[in-house]
C-alpha cells in the first residue's frame, strides 16, 4: 500500500502529488475500529460495574 502519490514530470523528475488515496479506507476503518473498540470497552465496563445478582 502506498502512503504518498508520486509521479514523474515531463523531465523524468519525481514529483510529490499528495497522500495516497489507498489510505481512504484505512481512515474509514480506523473510525469504525474506534467505535467498535469503545462499544466493547463500554460493555465490559458496564458488566464489571453491575451489582452482583441477588441471592
Amino acid at each position, binding site marked *: 500500500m502506498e502512503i*504518498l502519490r508520486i509521479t514523474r*514530470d515531463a523531465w523524468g523528475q519525481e*514529483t*510529490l*502529488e*499528495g*497522500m495516497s*488515496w489507498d*489510505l*481512504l479506507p*484505512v*481512515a*474509514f476503518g*480506523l*473510525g*469504525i475500529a*474506534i*467505535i467498535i473498540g*469503545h462499544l466493547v470497552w*463500554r460493555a465490559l465496563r458496564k458488566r464489571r460495574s453491575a451489582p452482583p445478582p441477588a441471592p
Partner: protein
Amino acid sequence: MSPDPNLITRHAPVDRVFHWITALAVLLLLASAFLPILGLKFSWLPLHWITGVVLGAATLFHLVRATFFQRLRCMVPRPRDFSDLKNGRRAAKYTLAQKLMHAVLGTAILVAVVTGFIMLAKVDTPLWQRNPYLLDASTWGVVYVLHGAAALLTLTLTMAHVYFSLLPEKRGYLRAMIGGQMTRDEAAVYHDPQRWSGQRKDDPRENHR
C-alpha cells in the same frame, strides 16, 4: 417566566451557530473530497472551495472569539486533567477526552484550512485568477500531503465525534449543543459543580479550573 433552576447553560447561541456551521462545512468538504475518489463523479471543485472559504471564515471567527473573548485555558489539555482522570476526580467545563478531541480535530481542521487557502491559488474564481506558479512543484507536493493527511484524520475523528455525541450517556452534550442547556444532574456525572456550574465567565464564582 423564570428560568428552570435545574438547567444550566453550557453553550452560548453564537458558539452553537459556529459549531453547526463548522459541522455542515466539514461534512460537505469530506463528501466533495472523497466521493469523487470513490467513483461518484460530479463537479466537486466549486462546492469544495466555496465551503472551504466558509470553514476558513468560521475557524478565524472561533480563533478570535476563543482567544480574546473566552477562556482559552479551559479548553487546553493540562497535566491536571490526566491526574484528575487517574484519581477519579470530575472535570471542570470540559473533560480530558473532550479537550483531546478538540485539540486534535481542531489542529487537523486548521491545517486543512491553511493549506486549502494556499491551494486556492490554483483555482479560478470570480475574485482572482489562478496562479499555479505561486510555489514550486516540490512545495506544492508538501501542501497537498498536509491537506490530504488533515482530511483523512478529520474523516476518522468526525466519525468518532458523531458516534460519541449519539451515545445515550452523552446525550446531554448533544442537547446542550442544540439548545444550549443541560440539566444539573447530567452535568454532575462528568463535571464537578464546584469547578463548573454553568455560570458565565464573568461570574466571580466561576473558576473553570
